[in-house]
């Protein structure tokens, strides 16, 4: 009985953690390359949730499909944002970026409130409530799909960075900015591409999340904080780190709910954060500075 409880909780933690990991991946990619800390990250995730919600209700598009559209749109959005708004702030002190993006975050949250109102929104798929029962383990269908999709998208992104020359060029920028300029890489364009990719990740993650949980404008700051926690635990700029961090947070929070108390679970993840900062400040997968 007890182990089936732990087993179930563990499975939930892993599946949810992967989706969070995908969201955090976007943040990590942007930070790792552009060195801009996207303090409006959770807000973008919520915008994506609403986008998926709208596409679902207006066109009947399953978020697992509309996620591609949203990712594309977010890519364009990210590209444009970086080119116009963010670029002048590259290389500027953290606090200046912070205010800029906090301003943006406030606008996004309240814009969503004006347009959609405060009610929680959700995409109810025909299989939203289905589950598989594997022995004593229950696996939610959507949660599993979302986790698989998150893994697939992350895999695509890894592939992009490993095997395409543009991907390698972006890594090159992150690795050595002077070197990138020396060989004639168009750094601004690659930055914009990166920001676009980062937002595309959030876009996908948001679309997936709307199948799991409900969108309200107010959850955004919490998601931003969550993404930051994950990324710092995993290692800022490390892509594997983001997924590992997401998994870890998912698992740790889930187990903490059972072992300690549900109301204390985020305390445990902050505890983990502090521990990581003290013992391995570059994050679990981060490179030593």
């Amino acid at each position, binding site marked *: 009985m007890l182990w089936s*409880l732990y087993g179930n*909780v563990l499975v*939930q933690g892993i599946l*949810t953690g992967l989706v969070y990991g995908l969201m955090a991946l976007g943040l990590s990619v942007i930070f790792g390359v552009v060195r801009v800390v996207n303090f409006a990250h959770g807000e973008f995730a919520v915008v994506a949730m609403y986008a998926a919600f709208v596409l679902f209700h207006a066109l009947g598009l399953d978020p697992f499909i509309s996620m591609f559209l949203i990712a594309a749109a977010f890519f364009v959005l990210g590209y444009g944002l970086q080119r116009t708004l963010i670029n002048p702030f590259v290389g500027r002190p953290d606090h200046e970026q912070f205010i800029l993006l906090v301003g943006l975050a406030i606008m996004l949250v309240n814009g969503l409130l004006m347009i959609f109102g*405060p*009610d929680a929104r959700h995409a109810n798929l025909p299989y939203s*409530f289905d589950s598989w029962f594997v022995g004593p383990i*229950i696996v939610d269908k959507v949660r599993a799909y979302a986790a698989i999709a998150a893994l697939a998208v992350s895999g695509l992104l890894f592939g992009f960075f490993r095997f395409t020359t543009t991907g390698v060029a972006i890594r090159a920028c992150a690795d050595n900015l002077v070197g990138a300029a020396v060989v004639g890489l168009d750094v601004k364009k690659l930055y914009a591409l990166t920001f676009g990719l980062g937002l595309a990740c959030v876009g996908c993650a948001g679309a997936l999340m709307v199948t799991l949980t*409900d969108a309200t404008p107010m959850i955004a700051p919490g998601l931003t904080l969550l993404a930051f926690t994950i990324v710092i635990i995993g290692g800022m700029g490390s892509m594997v780190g983001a997924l590992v961090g997401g998994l870890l947070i998912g698992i740790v929070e889930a187990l903490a709910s059972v072992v300690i108390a549900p109301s204390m*679970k985020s305390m445990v993840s902050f505890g983990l954060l502090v521990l990581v900062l003290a013992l391995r400040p570059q994050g679990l997968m981060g490179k030593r500075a």
Partner: protein
Amino acid sequence: APAVVKAQAQTLKIGVLLPRSGFFAQAGQSMHRGALAAPAVLADLGYKVELVHIDTESNADVARTQAERAINDGCHVLTGAFDSGHTLAIAQVTEQRQVPFVINIAAAPQITEQGYKYLVRNFQTGGQLVTNGLRLIKDVMDAKNVKLETAVFLHANDTFGTAQRGAMDAIYPRVNLPIKLVESIAYDPRAQDLAVEVTRIRSINPDLIMCVTRASDAIKLVRDMVRQRFEPKAIISPGSPGFYDEEFYQALGPLSDFVLFGLPWVNPKSAMSQAFEKSFAKASPNNRFAVDSFNAGFTFEALLIAADAFKRAGTTEGAKLMEAVRATNLAEHVMIGGPIQFDAKGQNPNIGSALVQNQKRVPTVVLPKDVALAEPVLPMPSWQGRS
């Protein structure tokens, strides 16, 4: 110099401070719809009021400064504010400026225990909510002759949820419910889902889940229960929001049916509430009255209390007006319960609770019998095969 109150004003100007954006926006906008529908009804009843709608942004600082501004702008009475913290922030102002403050919704018992002289509350305290909620659980078990042997209490670990937990801990042992309370679980109100919590409850497998949730949490709770095929005999809230909000019905469809909640509720058989319903339909054609009736109803009553006091006092002068507010005795009103009256602390002790059940996506009063519109369904039918 502070605005000199024109003592012989013809209409009563009421500042309605509600959290229409920010954290409590969902409830705030629901209450706001009540405020929008109120003036027409009050006019028909011969009351003259002018409302000033103010958004507290779910921020105590804003609530407080805007309360000051509202009084500056000539508001004679304030009403609001849903969250107990914001309510108290406003109470600081009204107390000092000697302007009556009629609380529409806020449950923290301390509000009427701290000695404020310029506020009254036409809402149940947390303790009353729990007491009435538990009594209704007993009633429905008797009425349907269903035995519920074990229960788990699940509550959000936020201001309201924790207050209710406290009340529960104090009251439950005294009410002699024949249900064993196996465990009380507090969940993180900022959590994205309640899957783990449900898994844990499922492993306990109680007959009854009692819960104190917030609007969007109730969805998560039910959704994860369905996904895990966990079917307790009953889900009953002893007095909390969540199960009656539009988003709950939208998100869950047929799965939103048959949960029960014991709350003060609109009396469907009162003439005034029927008039209010009509006005509401006109003012907010896209919203269902049944769904908003809790928030809207109490907001309406707060305005009614103020308007009535003004009529009796014949002045907008704070102290006199407050005197009249305290002397309120309104037999005819919209919510279930006895006449609206206030005790020495400013608390209305006569508010009744109803047991409401979602039936066909409509919150339907099922107990007490005299106001019920339908029979309660218990135990809860399986999640499967609903329509």
